[in-house]
């Protein structure tokens, strides 16, 4: 059969962010999906090397507006790893609380968008209305609806008041009621079943092969959650107290991904309650002096999966290298396993089901216009070898490796 090529983007009503999909179709069936990104690259890693250690959290926060605590969280964990210090308990609990609040509003946001993608705008309107309660609580706790700026190296940047925590408890109660109602509405709805079940299945083997993380891999049966496998801050204590549980489902289709996210919202609500009830008193941060030479890694379970930050210091007041790996970077290629063979009408939903966040992911920008640039492994190796030769020439001596 003749293949049809269907371009979508970069500014498309279905796409929240600018990106460019090329669908290769045989009739109505998708045989291949190609994705071109680069519309969101702003050069965070380079900009971070021009800022002081304490300014970087404000920059990395603006990598993504939806998971805006996860990036500074992972960054401060990386710097604390470098310094080998730990935040005081109250600081840890505050950071974890904000991280969980963010997970709730991010999952509700995704649920609304998924409803919008299948033409079920009631779900969209409902989910976003319930999300407003959580945003109100965030505003009360931190002073802003998004971009909370609550993480700093050595603890939390500001304290939360008892009044704000009481308000948050009320919001959580009302949100739990509405989310439970919502879950019932999804599970009972025959339209949702028909539309989501068996669509875009990501098998456990594929999830492991593509190294998918977070709510993309957990519905496929991979039990991997950084909060559980490598507990940090308040998560270790909350696990011991059995305050929450990791959601693992088996099916791996879009329905499982939606269900996993709703269930995770309920677990996060439980965890937030536990954090507020057990909020310790005392200092919120420790004083951090000069940053010594060294390197550190930090990882945090963002709403979309594991986010990883690496920093290297030469003893000055700025990082000399800052590496960011967002969860979407590993989740995105799973569309190669889940899209082919599906109907074209389902592709928007399947690609949305991993909750992609392109502005988190993009680390490269292609500047040339009207030219298709694809760098293969060989090209990259060639570029790397050329750079080594250039450096050898510049410093006027050959490396020891060349002899080997």
């Amino acid at each position, binding site marked *: 059969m003749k293949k049809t090529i269907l371009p979508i983007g970069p500014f498309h009503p279905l796409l*929240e962010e600018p990106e460019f999909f090329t669908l290769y179709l045989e009739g109505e069936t998708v045989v291949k999906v190609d994705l071109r990104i680069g519309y969101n690259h702003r050069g965070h890693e380079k900009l971070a090397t021009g800022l002081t250690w304490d300014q970087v959290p404000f920059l990395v926060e603006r990598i993504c507006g939806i998971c805006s605590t996860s990036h500074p969280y992972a960054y401060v964990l990386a710097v604390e790893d470098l310094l080998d210090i730990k935040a005081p308990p109250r600081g840890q609990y505050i950071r974890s609380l904000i991280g969980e609040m963010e997970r709730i509003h991010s999952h509700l946001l995704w649920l609304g968008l998924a409803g919008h993608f299948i033409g079920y705008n009631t779900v969209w309107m409902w989910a*976003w209305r319930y999300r407003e309660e959580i945003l109100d609580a965030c505003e009360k706790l931190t002073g802003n609806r998004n971009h909370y700026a609550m993480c700093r190296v050595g603890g939390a940047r500001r304290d939360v008041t008892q009044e704000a925590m009481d308000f948050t408890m009320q919001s959580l109660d009302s949100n739990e009621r509405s989310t439970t109602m919502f879950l019932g509405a999804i599970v009972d709805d025959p339209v949702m079943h028909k539309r989501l079940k068996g669509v875009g299945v990501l098998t456990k083997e594929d999830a492991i092969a593509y190294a998918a993380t977070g709510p993309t891999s957990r519905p496929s049966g991979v039990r991997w959650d950084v909060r559980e496998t490598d507990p940090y801050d308040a998560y270790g204590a909350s696990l011991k107290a059995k305050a929450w549980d990791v959601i693992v489902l088996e099916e791996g289709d879009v329905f499982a991904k939606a269900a996993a996210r709703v269930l995770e919202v309920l677990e996060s609500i439980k965890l937030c309650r536990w954090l507020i009830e057990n909020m310790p008193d005392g200092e919120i941060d420790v004083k951090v002096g000069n940053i010594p030479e060294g390197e550190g890694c930090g990882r945090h379970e963002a709403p979309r999966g594991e986010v990883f930050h690496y920093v290297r210091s030469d003893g000055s007041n700025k990082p000399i290298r800052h590496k960011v790996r967002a969860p979407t970077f590993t989740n995105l290629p799973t569309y190669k396993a889940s899209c082919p063979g599906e109907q074209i009408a389902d592709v928007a939903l399947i690609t949305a089901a991993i909750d992609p966040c392109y502005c988190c992911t993009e680390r490269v920008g292609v*500047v040339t216009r009207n030219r298709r640039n694809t760098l293969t492994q060989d090209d990259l190796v060639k570029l790397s070898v050329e750079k080594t030769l250039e450096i050898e020439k510049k410093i006027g001596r050959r490396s020891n490796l060349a002899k080997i």
Partner: protein
Amino acid sequence: MGLKTAALKKSIWVFHVACSPCNNCDIEILDLLTPRFDVERFGIILVGSPRHADALLITGVCNRHVTPRLIETYRATAKPCVCFLFGACSCQGNVFKGGYNVPRLIDEIILEEDPNAIIVYIPGCPPKPEAMIAGVVKALSVL
């Protein structure tokens, strides 16, 4: 005020142009359409094509890759149109100012394309939905 601008003010249809944003302003724009704020009661609707739009909602800092696409979108929009620049990024560059992939600000790009462009700035990181509505109302009262 010309006849065309008078007609423009009645119920503005908007097209959302995300020029390398951090998603935050975009989400707040979508928030405006949901029950808490519900700007559809003022006749403001998000449309699928710039050909149908009276206003462009521009967010983000506009990197090198997206600049030609922004200019194309602006050309495709029926004139007169209003460009709303949402957020500190699109107004003045925010923390990204001076970055290697952010050569020019959005208002410079648009004014170079069309010196008579109507540009409205709504600062904030992100601007609260109330601020967005206030900005739109203020702009419409001036036009």
